[in-house]
């Protein structure tokens, strides 16, 4: 009976464990299956959230949650990027929903989108390319690349130090990809590995000790989605800051309360 508890304490997980090989490679069918499930859940949520827009009093819990999510993302974007951050809200919200649902799927399935390194690397590449695209669109090609050369140094120092700063900035762009993808992959797949290890620890006494990690895993779901979105907003703010702006409160009002 111990083998029922060996893999995450559920028969579904055990069936999933037996269908793909132990070397850790994932089937494309599994990946597409979980992506399809993710899209169905997200589409269903959006349908039910939209259908509540016609009522006078929003009583459905799904619309309340969607509004909370929108307010959270809007506050984050406008607070981090500034008042011109409103056009980045759809992108950031899309990534938040995809990452959150992918993490939630990883709670009760041994294979999930965000537990797969390729999916996370793809998302990080999309985000970093989108940030470069927005920078080029806002500053022009030369202006965007002159951001990489750092501060303007005087005299002979500029000849030696500016190429070094340029190379370090390029390396840090590559590191953004690595850190974004590995953070998410390590947290979610590491959660799986930790649950496996604790189940193996408790298998002599037939106790699925891995289930005790579930609260931490739920917290990690939310936190990692938020971290990804906040870092996207921070990278966008670094690239599209527009010189001098007057201090505007994030909801669009000046501090004295007028528009």
């Amino acid at each position, binding site marked *: 009976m111990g083998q029922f508890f060996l893999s995450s304490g559920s028969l579904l997980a055990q069936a999933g464990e037996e269908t793909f090989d132990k070397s850790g490679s994932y089937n494309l069918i599994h990946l597409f299956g979980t992506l399809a499930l993710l899209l169905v859940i997200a589409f269903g949520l959006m349908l039910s959230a939209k259908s509540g827009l016609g009522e006078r009093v929003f009583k459905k819990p799904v619309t309340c949650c969607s509004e909370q999510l929108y307010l959270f993302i809007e506050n984050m974007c406008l607070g981090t990027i500034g008042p011109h951050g409103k056009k980045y809200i759809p992108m950031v919200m899309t990534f938040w929903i995809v990452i959150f649902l992918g993490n939630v799927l990883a709670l009760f399935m041994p294979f999930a989108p965000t537990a797969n390194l390729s999916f996370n690397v793809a998302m990080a590449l999309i985000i970093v390319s989108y940030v470069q695209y927005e920078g080029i669109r806002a500053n022009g090609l030369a202006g965007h690349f002159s951001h990489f050369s750092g501060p303007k140094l005087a005299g002979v120092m500029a000849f030696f130090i500016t190429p070094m700063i340029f190379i370090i900035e390029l390396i840090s762009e590559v590191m953004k990809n690595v*850190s974004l993808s*590995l*953070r998410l*992959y*390590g947290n979610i797949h590491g959660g799986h590995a930790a649950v496996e290890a604790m189940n193996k620890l408790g298998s002599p006494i037939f106790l699925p000790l891995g289930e005790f990690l579930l609260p931490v895993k739920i917290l990690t779901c939310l*936190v990692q989605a938020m971290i990804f979105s906040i870092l996207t907003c921070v990278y966008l703010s670094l690239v599209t800051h527009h010189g001098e702006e007057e201090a505007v409160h994030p909801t669009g009002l000046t501090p004295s309360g007028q528009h």
Partner: protein
Amino acid sequence: MLGIGIGIAGLGCGIGLGFIGNGALQGMARQPEAIGKLQTAMLIALAFVELVFLLSVFVVPFLAGGK
């Protein structure tokens, strides 16, 4: 040797997270009305420190020996 390396990385991560928690809790104790902002900032700092540990667990063995 890899186990010792990952253990030392875990030690550093634990000490770092302890410092983050200490600072956050002290700030929350001084100003209870800023608890929301401090919690957000603490979680952001937590992600960065966790990243160093996850790099040492997933990237270093790959670079050091395995394929």
